């Protein structure tokens, strides 16, 4: 392996045990406040023995998690080209803003006149997102993309109910993310699958064939999960609207089109965004995120409550929206995440946010051009911010997408998204994002080329990969046959 390509190899690996395999009875890591009141009696029948936790010192805990962190690959470690996830750099100034004591110590049930700073932030964030998407009204309450999708589906349900209708179906493209049909199912709508055409996009004719008055609408992702712009979207939207349906937009791929596309203009009625993708808030190993929902004006009455409203110079939370779908969260959503996205949007401003999309699309197309003869390109067309390859060429050597992904780890990269979307066998979805510089992208390309060569000449290297991280391939079969979820 060429040492110039291999970067970010793991350093010190310490074999750190589980928490309860450490510590000693009687240790504590917490500074207990003084007991300055008497002990009061309590019915002993109610009292437990306390949880069976290990007793650890502060040093024990700090070493434990410091060591664990060394086994993790994050965006700060290296390039993380996970398609559909937009793993862009997470600015640290965002963290500074979210941890300001005024925000982090604010109780959600403070009298509203005392919480003006955070209410103003939420209101302004909603206005920014409306501007960016081209839609009219926004809620930042949903706490994840899937939560936003559920919000959207509930809006669909309430809208149709308000018109005296109960529509039981919803059209879902075969390229859709699994959360789309799952969210529809939670609202008791039956997903009706529609195949994309040979160009990888939706075909108005196929939609027209299945759209009827029992169909609540369609869920589209644009750009779609193949990284392609849905060129027929306006025609598709018209067909759905004509039969009284609504168009839901999964905005997970918003990073490709900011400042360029008007989501309202293309016919989307309800759109969710992912602040932890497009708007740079950290993924945290799987959350917390935020999935704001943006709607056209006529759907504003259905947005979840409470809503942040402006009353001359003051901001308030109001619940008097009788057509609202109700509450989706105990309070107002993930304010800590909103603060980070808000900081990012203000840091970028309109000109840089548009540049973000331009550079994201440039990076992806550059990779597509450079690798299209090394790996089979699923659709040889201009892509947006991500491109999809497959293992078709490598299968000749009985090497799969999985093997390629595992070998990429040895080269110091996080693998791209694999086996999604389902319409491409052995899919490899690469999304570099705009924060990757040309040298790192070139290194990634060289690594992929080297791996393709290894696949031909020395495939065992791939089958035995990865060898550099703390563990190599794990037995997922036993983990599923005999689950051990608790220690």
């Amino acid at each position: 392996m060429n040492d110039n390509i291999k970067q970010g190899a793991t350093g010190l690996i310490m074999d750190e045990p589980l928490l309860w395999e450490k510590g000693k009875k009687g240790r504590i890591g917490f500074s207990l406040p003084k007991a300055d009141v008497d002990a009061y009696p309590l019915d002993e029948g109610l009292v437990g023995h306390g949880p069976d936790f290990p007793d650890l010192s502060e040093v024990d805990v700090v070493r434990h998690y410091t060591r664990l962190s060394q086994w993790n690959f994050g965006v700060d470690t290296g390039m993380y080209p996970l398609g559909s996830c937009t793993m862009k750099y997470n600015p640290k100034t965002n963290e500074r803003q979210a941890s300001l004591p005024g925000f982090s110590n604010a109780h959600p049930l403070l009298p509203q006149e005392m919480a003006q700073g955070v209410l103003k932030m939420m209101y302004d964030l909603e206005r920014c997102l409306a501007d960016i998407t081209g839609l009219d009204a926004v809620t930042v309450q949903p706490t994840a993309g899937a939560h936003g999708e559920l919000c959207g589906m509930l809006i669909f349900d309430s809208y149709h109910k308000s018109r005296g209708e109960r529509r039981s179906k919803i059209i879902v493209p075969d390229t859709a993310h699994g959360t789309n049909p799952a969210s529809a199912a939670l609202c008791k709508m039956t997903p009706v699958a529609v195949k994309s055409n040979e160009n990888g996009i939706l075909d108005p004719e196929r939609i027209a064939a299945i759209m009827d008055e029992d169909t609540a609408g369609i869920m589209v992702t644009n750009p779609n999960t193949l990284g392609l712009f849905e060129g027929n979207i306006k025609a598709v939207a018209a067909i759905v609207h004509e039969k009284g349906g609504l168009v839901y937009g999964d905005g997970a791929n918003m990073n490709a089109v900011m400042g360029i596309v008007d989501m309202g203009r293309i016919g989307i009625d309800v759109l969710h965004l992912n602040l932890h993708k497009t708007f740079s808030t950290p993924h945290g190993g799987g959350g917390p995120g935020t999935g704001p929902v943006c709607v056209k004006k006529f759907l504003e009455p259905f947005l979840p409550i409470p809503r942040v409203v402006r009353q001359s110079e003051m901001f308030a939370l109001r619940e008097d929206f009788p057509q609202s779908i109700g509450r989706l969260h105990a309070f107002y959503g993930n304010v800590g995440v909103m603060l980070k996205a808000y900081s990012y949007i203000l840091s970028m401003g309109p000109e840089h946010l548009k540049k973000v999309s331009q550079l994201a699309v440039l990076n992806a197309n550059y990779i597509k051009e450079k690798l299209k003869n090394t790996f089979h390109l699923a659709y040889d067309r201009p892509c947006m911010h991500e491109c999809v390859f497959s293992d078709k060429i490598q299968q000749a050597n009985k090497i799969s997408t999985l093997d390629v992904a595992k070998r990429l780890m040895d080269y110091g990269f996080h693998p791209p998204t694999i086996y999604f979307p389902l319409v491409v066998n052995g899919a490899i979805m690469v999304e570099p994002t705009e924060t990757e510089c040309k040298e790192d992208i070139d290194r990634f390309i060289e690594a992929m080329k080297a791996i393709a060569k290894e696949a031909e000449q020395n495939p065992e290297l791939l089958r035995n990969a990865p060898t550099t991280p703390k563990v190599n391939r794990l037995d997922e079969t036993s983990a599923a046959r005999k689950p051990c979820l608790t220690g």
Partner: protein
Amino acid sequence: MRYLPHTAEEINDMLGVVGVSSFDDLFKSIPEDCRRNNELRFPGPMSEWELNAHMDSLSSEISAGPDFKTYLGAGSYEHYIPSFIPYLVGRSEFATAYTPYQPEISQGTLQAIYEYQTLISRLLGMDISNASLYDGAMALAEAMLMAIRVTRRKKIAVSNLIHPHYRRVLRTYFAPTDYEIIELNGKGNGQTDLEAIDKIDDLAAVAVQSPNFFGCIEDLQGIAEKAHAQKALLVTCFSEALAYGLFKNPGSLGADIVCGEGQSLGISRSYGGPGLGILACKNKYMRNIPGRLVGQTKDLNGRRGFVLTLATREQHIRREKATSNICSNNSLCAVTAAMYMATLGNNGMQALSRLNYNKTEYLKQSLKNAGVNIPFESPTFNEFVVEFPSGFEKKYKDLLDRKIIAGLSLEPYYTKYKSHYLLTVTETKTRKDLDAFVKEVVS
């Protein structure tokens, strides 16, 4: 711009490789009628220093500063957070990592979540916990949907003493379904009235919160017996996780599914989010629990490692037949909670919970001695209800000027409790604070 590394030269090179001459060419596939008619209009860009000033200013417009004494709880609790916890959880290897779908390079997150699952199971006395959900309200909704799935029945009995916002979220999730919610009212002693349970047939589950919204400890064992007699499940809920450092855990009292909010476990209040949705259950419901699960396994060399497992329950495989639509968990918050639980340990959890209880009792007794009515006689943990004289709203406002937030008025949530307030006392209040509070409130 410091997050956009491309130089003009590099951009030109790359455009050349792609075979186009400008950025606009890259977007040729987008029809004209899909494009914006105007430029983006929101404010910015701000330099890092302008942003700091702007955010400092917004932060200062939140007038509950550190000199305020806040007696608010009701689902968001003021607890001390050791300074090393945000420091550790802010490590970018944890914070900037994605979901651990590639386990070989995510063992940090995976082991940390496995430890979280274990500690939560032990805290609640349950067999298994998932890797967390969005918040306590959504956890209740998912717990009820799970109970309905498992029992194949459609009716649930839900106590009105569960946090009002949690019940609102439950109703939102149930709106498109034909499941039925039967309300259980409260009794005079501050607990849930269980009489109605015996009369409901075809019941999937009974749901109660303990400590409940009034701060009172419910008779979970008694409720378990009644629910199980109806072949229904007992789902218990909580908003203050610290209670189980002191009180018997729900698992030991017969709960089948436990859900709740884990914000108390080292997570800052942050105006209500992010929080930590907790969901735990008995082993036999393992394949029905929603959310991510981390399991222990071995690698090819026999080394212990951890992976996401039982993924066939989830949306990316099952799609519309999934146990839930949930994709993410609140991973970083779950890791924070694990750190907090590890920091306290068995000793510390008991000592800290006991301290919360004692300080709360001190305030309760002091108010009682000063003539304030304590309407509910059931034992409480760190929250309790008082009945102030009518017209207390004016005094409440005066107290705000004196930097005291005298709890939460119950009237907006329970119209019959006109002058009742929920007071919360944690380890953050000194005896001096509590004495001053009593003095102010009765003067």
